[in-house]
Structures are given as structure tokens and as C-alpha cells.
């Protein structure tokens, strides 16, 4: 039992959920505290990297190290950290996710302009397919993204933090300012049903 508790605690630490200290760290980082910036980095890098592995086409994972991509996204964000309003870890995740997605798209466009650089293994014909697209198809992936964009910012954050980043409900409650884990779960369920409805509307 005790090691479960420990690993849960570790996870929590990894996933950057202590909103008070996230806000505090951002605050310190804004004032130029390098140590605070490093800690923010440590917290957000791992879950984002994991997430990005599922979103990058294979060749991009081979050629551009996922680490680089995530790292650049983090740098870019934290560099402008003084413009960013931190509402909680969930919001920061949503924001970072968008930055990484944009970077992936940039990367794809860049490769398409230089066809000689595409697919060193010779197997790439299209712009590259991510594992997610691979599993549910590009069309459905796009439908998912469109539907997600139509949700309220709060609901988007719930979906991203729970479904994509894998925060648990306690973490969700803390980072999105819900009173309890159960309340967070309820809100997440509502958001998910909304998302499914949006997707169904889009598909019809």
C-alpha cells in the first residue's frame, strides 16, 4: 500500500498539479528566477513529451527529437511568460499543447517544401501520420480537434488535462479549481458528452 501512495505522490509531482506553487513558480520566473524556470520545465516536460509522441508522425519522431520539439515549445512559452495569465496547471497544459501542435504543423509544412528531406526511410508519401491519426484516421482526428475547439475554454481544459494528459481527478480538481475530485469528474463527464455531441453533429 505504501508504495502506491509513494508513486501517486511522485506522479502528482511530475504532473505539476500544485496550482499554488505553479502560480508561484511562474511569478518567480517572471521576475527572472532561473531556478523557478527550471522547475517549471521539469514539471511540464514529461507529460507533454508523452502526449507529443502520440501526435507526431513517425518520421518526425525519428528526425526531430520529440524532446527538442517539446523543449522549444516550453522555451517559447516561458520566454513570454510575463504575458501569460496562469489560471492553473490545466490552463498551462492547454496552452502548451497548442504551442506544440503549432510547432508540429510548422515542421510538417517545412518538410513538405523540401521533399528531398522527407522520409529517410523512403516510406513516407504523405505528410506523415501520427499514431492517433493512424488509429482513428485523419478525418476523425480532425473532427475531434474541430469539436474540441468548439467547447468552452473550461471544458477544453478538462478534456485536455484528463483525456490527453492523464491527470487524475484530484489533480484535475486542484488545477481547474473544482471543489472536489468528484466535482471534477462530473464536470469532465459533462464535457466529454458535449464533445461527443459536437463530433456527432460534425459527422452528420
Amino acid at each position, binding site marked *: 500500500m505504501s508504495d502506491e501512495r509513494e508513486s501517486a505522490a511522485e506522479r502528482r509531482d511530475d504532473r505539476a498539479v500544485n496550482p499554488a506553487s505553479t502560480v508561484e513558480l511562474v511569478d518567480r520566473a517572471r521576475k527572472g528566477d532561473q531556478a523557478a524556470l527550471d522547475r517549471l520545465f521539469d514539471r511540464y516536460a514529461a507529460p507533454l513529451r508523452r502526449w507529443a509522441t502520440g501526435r507526431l508522425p513517425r518520421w518526425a519522431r525519428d528526425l526531430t527529437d520529440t524532446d527538442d520539439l517539446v523543449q522549444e515549445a516550453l522555451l517559447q512559452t516561458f520566454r513570454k511568460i510575463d504575458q501569460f495569465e496562469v489560471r492553473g496547471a490545466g490552463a498551462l497544459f492547454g496552452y502548451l499543447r497548442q504551442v506544440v501542435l503549432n510547432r508540429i504543423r510548422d515542421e510538417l509544412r517545412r518538410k513538405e517544401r523540401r521533399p528531398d528531406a522527407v522520409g529517410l526511410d523512403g516510406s513516407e508519401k504523405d505528410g506523415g501520420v501520427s499514431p492517433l491519426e493512424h488509429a*482513428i484516421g485523419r478525418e476523425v482526428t480532425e473532427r475531434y480537434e474541430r469539436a474540441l475547439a468548439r467547447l468552452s475554454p473550461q471544458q477544453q481544459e478538462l478534456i485536455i488535462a484528463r483525456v490527453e494528459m492523464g491527470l487524475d481527478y484530484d489533480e484535475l480538481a486542484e488545477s481547474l479549481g473544482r471543489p472536489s475530485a468528484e466535482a471534477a469528474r462530473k464536470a469532465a463527464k459533462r464535457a466529454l458528452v458535449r464533445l461527443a*455531441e459536437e463530433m456527432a453533429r460534425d459527422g452528420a
Partner: protein
Amino acid sequence: MAPDPVLDELAGAVLDGDPVNWAAVESKADATATDVVKQLAVLSLVAALHREKQPAAVRKPERELPDETWGHLRLLERIGRGAFGEVYRAWDTRLDREVALKLLPAPATSSASSIIEEGRLLARVKHPGVVTIHGAEQIADRVGLWMEYIRGQTLEELLEDGDAFTPGDVIQIGLELSRAVGAVHAAGLIHRDIKAQNVIRSDDGRVMLMDFGTGLEIAAPASASAGTPLYLAPELFAGQPATVRGDVYSLGVLLYHLLTGTYPVTGKSLHDVRRAHERGERTSLGDARRDLPRRLIHAIEHAIDPRPDRRCQSATALAAALDSVQRTSRRRWMAGVAAAAVVFTLWMSQPSPNDSRANRSLADIARAPAVSWWARLWPVKPRTVAVLPFRNLGAVAGSDWMAEGLTYEVRNILASVEGLNVLPAGSDVPTDVVIEGELFASEERVKVNARMTSPTGAVDPWKGATFESRNNAVLDIQSELAIDIVNSLRLKLGGGQRHYEIAPVLYMKFLRARGLAAKHERTIAAEVVGLFDEITVEARSYAPAWAGLASALGSIIRLAPDSMADALQRMKLAALEAYRLDPLLAEASAAMGVVQAHDLEWALSEESFKEALSRNRSLTWIHTDAVLHLLAPLGRFDEALQLLEVAREAEPASLDVRRTLASIQVEVGLYEEAIQNAKWVLARDPSYPFAANRVGRALALSGRMDEALRVFEEDDSVGPGYVGYVYARTGRRDEAEAIARDAARIPGGFAAATQLLIYGGLDDKDRAFEALDRLVERNAWRAATWMLRPEVAVIRDDPRFDAIRRRLKIPIPK
């Protein structure tokens, strides 16, 4: 706006990662909801993909897909390519689920229809060990078979990854597999291509047979080159048609391969193999692995007999043979203990409820299905359980009440099992597991049938068993039967730790006892035994206390001057009771491990400790028990050090772990490290048992005799043997001899061990062996440990040393 309850429920399952039977839900949903349900199914996949740690690293998608779709299946990635077809992971767009699809290239029309026909027959084989075939069809110029998609690794991949299969694993795999093949044969089919590449161990621990040899005829009409030659029975080389016995042969080769990494008949080419068969060149399993149990060798050799008529005639017969091998080792030991336990119980003339329980428990344990230890790890996903009220079929007054009480108890105990989610009575949510049964009560006894079904198909159904009680006290019957039923279910389900409810006062007492027990000191151990005794009297079904009692008695036996027959017997009873009450409790397995080690049943003990550690890695006293009771007497010090490293990471502040580490470091000559660790312990508890002694031993063995003597003289907890040893090493021969002579008169004995130490120090081989012989008589387990001590290294290079090791049933390294 109130949320739709069905959608809300589904969304919860998707978010929590719980399994959902989408097809069933969709069929029930009304038209407007169907679309949303479909999208939720897609979202569950999105969520699952994100949950996987590294989807890309695990499976490298291949991009050469011939078509985007085949019929209603969308090809996702190629996961395998064989001589006669390719296998894809695919998405079934009709049923919205993942499947594996095997596509065969344009065949001649006649064989195409035979493959489809065979696929349809295969689809009828329903067995948990056989991959379920969903369908077979020809579209355009391709024939496809689509089936259940299973995440896992093939046995060949596991072998390549360097996973060693223990004989126990192989017996278990062989058992499950031969039953699966039996089911295929029963359907009138022959697999034709059984090999390690075609058996997958799924991520949730099931062993599954896949990839039937369908299509072999297309690739090569000459049957010999179609299957894998190394697995092929000799008569098939001669061109005879595939038979059930050919499958049995391949199955035998597969098990041989898992045990040896090679094959009974080998060769570089098909021609080589054929010729080796013709010349009868084969390596018997007994020659390849001399260390295996004879009955196991016999079972497998029987399956790979080159003469078809002398061979094991069916997969079911092979299963039966393996089953008996599996039961024998454990049961033989159990029977011995049981006999001793009964005698002991009579001798102690304990109150009657206990002895009948002890008897029944042994029968139950022997009947319990054995599952290999890795498969017992509890699956991550929680399962939902419903317990239907037990139906009362008896006519005795009060039996209605008894059935109700039993239902209540079963529900209660199940609710304490981690990973099980017991739904309230009357809930109409589909559950993974439904438990039901009947109760018959007569004047003399109560009989209960219990069984398990699985509406969602998440677990294999269980035909159930009959449980019986002759006890007349109603409350006892209820809890006893409920415990038995739940334990059988847990074994069937493959795991789950129980959380016990116990009065806080008793729990405090339990924690105190555990804390004291970790000191491993004999005077304290007596107190610990007293505490555990008190707890077991008050809470008779609290398995952890029985296990603690067994372990504490083990400490006494390990440390007390003389082996005490009654302590050994009591330890056995306590361990058995713990195991009967909760066969999946890590502490219970560990207690069995201790008992088995003292019975010199080393292999069984190792299995028990492995089981214990696989169930709960956080209890560091299980690590130290495994080290002290099992690995130290066997001289497996490297493994001991590794295990202790793991324990230290789990509980860095544990004095017990650090002290045990120091002990092993002394045995292997890491004296500086040993001194450091023992001093670390002393700094935190100056009177911690044996810590000072380890400092002294390390000092003496590294030649710092004066310092060592001072330590030994101050620390009087371990008798005068160590002082005598220092005298022996520093030329004070007379004084050393005097201590050895007086040893016989030391209160409480310990004579043989003391003398062994001193004569070892004097390099007096003969008298050291005499002392060791006496020690073997008194306490064989202690002799095994002490004879490895560096202080008595003088006896090592003598034939008598190995002879004693053999007498102690210890495998001797080459």
C-alpha cells in the same frame, strides 16, 4: 439540463478507462443517442491511445498498406508477415472495434472456399486460450480472416528478450495451451502450426493460441515445408497428412524449446532436419536439462515421441499429465505437513473447531487451481461485481436466514478486495462478474454451490464449486463458507489484495508485533509470538496475524539455541491457516516460504517467496525473510544483495534491511561496507540485535583482531563462540579450546555452532566437520547457513562439504 444517465455513465467509463461493451450499448440506445454513443466509442479510443505510455515505441507502424480498406475493415498497420499471408491491425468500421486481420493473396478458388469454411469452423471454437475468430470472407482476389486483437508478446519474443521460463512457468503455459489445443481438436480442427511465434502472452497474463495454419496448402502443397520444420513431427516429413498427434508433437517441442532454448531435433536446413529424423538423432530433454523434475521430463518426452502410436495421444491427455506434475510437488509437501499437523493438533488437544478447519483447509488448498505467479498480478482495470442472493433450497428452519447471511458475508468480503467494485443489490448496470449460487442445509451439514458468470465477457466464466461445512454454529458457517467462496473466486480471477477490517485496538497490537518482529531477535520473538497469539484468538480470520505468527515462530527457530519441534509445528499450522484464509496474501505466501525453507524444500520455498514478492513489493520484511531463510543457506548471496537493494529503496530507513545487508556483506567479504551499514544501524538504535556482532565479525575477518575482541566482549548477546574464534585466530589456542569444551554446558545449548566456529578458526578440519554433523542433526537449516560462513572456510575444499550440502538437499553449483 439534467444529463442523460446512460451517456453520463458511458462518459464516466471512458474517462476512467473502464471497459465498455459498445456493441451492446449501441444496440440499446435510441436513434438520436446512437450517434453520440458512437462518438463516445471513438473518444474511448482517443483516451486509450493517450493512456498508453509510448504508443510509437511499442509498435512501430508500417506504412506499406496495400489498400486503405478491405471490406468493412480499415487497415491500420501491418503487424506480421508470413510465408502465406500478412497480418494487420485493423479497425472494424461496422462494430467500431480493433481487430487483427490475416490477408491471404489471390488463391485458387477451391482452396479459398476451404479456408473460409475452416474459418467458420474456427469461429465456433470458444475457449479462453484460443483467439476468437470473428469472421472469414473473400473479397475481390483476397481471402481474409479477422479475429480478436490481442496486445502482448509472443513466447518467442519473450524468449528473445531473455525472459527465462522457470519449470513452473512452462508447466503452467503447457497446461493452458494443451487445454486450448484440446478445444480446437474437439471442434474437429487441427492447428498444424503450433510454435512459440504463434502463442501470445497477453498483457493481462493470458496465454493464447493464434494463427491457425489456415492457408498452408496454398503456400506449399508439400506439407513438410509448410509448417515450421523444427516443430514438425517426423511422420509429417514422410508426407502423411496432419493429425491431432502432429499437433501434440509440436506442443511438446514448444515446451522443450521454452525450457532449453533449442529443439529436440535440429539442423541448418530442412534437409538436415529430415535427415536427423531419419537417423534418429535427437537430444532428450533429460540430457538437455538434468535438473528438471523427472515427471516433467517424462510428460514432455511422451509428447515428442517420434513414434506416433507410442506418443501421448491427445492434447487433453498432455494437459492431464502436466496437471498432475503441477499438483504433485506442492501437494506432496502439503500432505506431509498435513499429516504432521494432524498429529500435532491431536497432541495439543486443541478445541474442536480448529482441527476440522485445518483438515478442510488442506483439501481446499490441494484443489485450488494453481496459476503461475506472474499471471496472478492483479489487472489494472477495476472490475465490477454483483452478488445475487444465494437461493435457499433447504427446508431446515432458519436456512432462509442463513442464505441471506451468506450473501451478505460474501458481498462484504468481496468489497474488501482491491480492484473489485461490488455493486449494490438490484443495480441494473452490466457488471463484469456475477456471482450466484444455492444453499442446501440439512440437520447435519450445510452445502453451498457457487459459480460465476461474466455478462460483459471481461472474465472467463467459472463453473463453480461446492463448499461444505459440518459445523453447526451458524455464524461460523457463514464466515467460513464466505471466505472459501471468495478465495476460490479470487484464485479464479487471478488476484486482488484484501483489505481487512479489524478493531483499531487489535490493529495497534498487530502493528506493534510487526515492528518488534522486524528486529529478528529471539528474546523479542517470544514476546512477538505472544502478541500474535492474542490477536489470532480475538480475530480468528485475520490472515495477516496468522502469517505474522508463522514468521515470528520462524525467527525463533532460526535464532534459538535448539531447534524446537513444537515451534516448527506451530509455525506450520499458522502458515497453513494464513494461506487457507487468504491464499493471495503476500504475507501468507512468505510464511509458507519460511516453513518450506526449514523443511529443506528449497524449490517450493523459492516459489512461495516469489509469489509473495510479486503480490506485494513494499513489505521489506518479506525481502529480509527471503534472504535469511532461503538465499543465505543456499549461498545465493548475489541475489540476496540485489533483493536487499530493492528493499532498501522501498524503505530506506529500515534498520532490519540495513542490518541484513551488513550480514550478507560479511558473508561475501565486503567487510568495510558491512561495518558501515552495521554502524549506521547502531547509530539509530545502539541495542539493535546483531548489529554489533556484524561489526565484530567484519573486523575479525579483515584481521583487526583487537578491535573485534573488544566488540565481542562487550556484546554478550550471542554467546562466547565469537570470542573463542578471535582467540583461535590470535594464537590463544588453549583459551579457545576451553571455550569449545565448555560450549556443551552453555545454558540452552548452541554447542555445535560454537564449536564449529572455534574449530574453523583453529583450521581444525576434522573436528569442524564433527561439529557440523552435530549441527545438522540439531538444526539442519542452521547448518546449511553456518557452513558457508567465512570463519569456517577451512571446510570448503573437502569432499565432506559437498556431501553435507547434498544431504541438505541443496543443489551444488558446477
